[in-house]
C-alpha cells in the first residue's frame, strides 16, 4: 500500500510569514507533486519533481518554492505568505509506469 505523509496537518501563520510544508513518501516513487485545493477550483498543481534535486513548475506556481531533497522528501515553501494562499495542500507521488497518484492526508494552511 502506497504511503504518503504530510506535516503539519494544520498551520496558522500571519501575512508575510515563512512556512514550510513537508511531504514524505515511502513507495520509492520517482514523481512527487504539490497541489492546492480550493472551493470552485478543484485541485491545482503547484510544483512537481522527477527526482531528488529536480523541480518543475506546475500550473499555479506564483508565491511558492519547492525543493526535493531526497527521493522520499518534497517540501513546499511559502517565504512571504499571503491570505490568498489559505488553502488545503496535498502532496502526491507516483512511479514512472503507473499514472495513478497516491495522495497524502493534506495540510490545512490559514494565513491571517
Amino acid at each position, binding site marked *: 500500500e502506497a504511503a504518503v505523509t504530510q506535516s503539519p496537518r494544520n498551520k496558522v501563520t500571519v501575512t508575510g510569514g515563512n512556512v514550510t510544508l513537508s511531504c514524505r513518501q515511502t513507495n520509492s516513487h520517482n514523481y512527487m507533486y504539490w497541489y492546492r485545493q480550493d472551493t470552485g477550483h478543484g485541485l491545482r498543481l503547484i510544483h512537481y519533481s522527477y527526482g531528488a534535486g529536480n523541480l518543475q513548475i506546475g*500550473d499555479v506556481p506564483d508565491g511558492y518554492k519547492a525543493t526535493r531533497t531526497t527521493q522520499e522528501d518534497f517540501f513546499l515553501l511559502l517565504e512571504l505568505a499571503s491570505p490568498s494562499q489559505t488553502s488545503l495542500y496535498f502532496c502526491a507521488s507516483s512511479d514512472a509506469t503507473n499514472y*495513478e497518484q497516491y*495522495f497524502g492526508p493534506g495540510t490545512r494552511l490559514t494565513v491571517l
Partner: protein
Amino acid sequence: AQSVTQPDARVTVSEGASLQLRCKYSYSGTPYLFWYVQYPRQGLQLLLKYYSGDPVVQGVNGFEAEFSKSNSSFHLRKASVHWSDSAVYFCVLSVFNYAQGLTFGLGTRVSVFP
C-alpha cells in the same frame, strides 16, 4: 489543453438507491481516466481507473465506471449506496506526459440520507 467537467456540484440520494455521477472530458488524444473519492477530513483515494480495453471498469466498494470515447465521458455508478458513501467524488484525467500532472474536475459532493 485538456479539461474535465463534472456538471453536478451536489447530489443527494437515499440509502439503498442507485447513484450515477457524470463526467465529461476534453482531450484530443487517448486519455487515462480516474475516479477519486475524498471522505471528510481525509486525502484522496483512488476508486477506479481506465487505461484501455473493456470500457466498463470495476472499482472498490461496488463502484464501476463506463468510458465512452464517442461521448467523451466517464460516468461513475453504484447500484446501491450506503451512508458511508457520502463524500466528494472527483473525475480525473491524465495524459501521456507527467508534466501535466492530473487534471481534476471540480468534484461532486454526494450526500446519502437514511
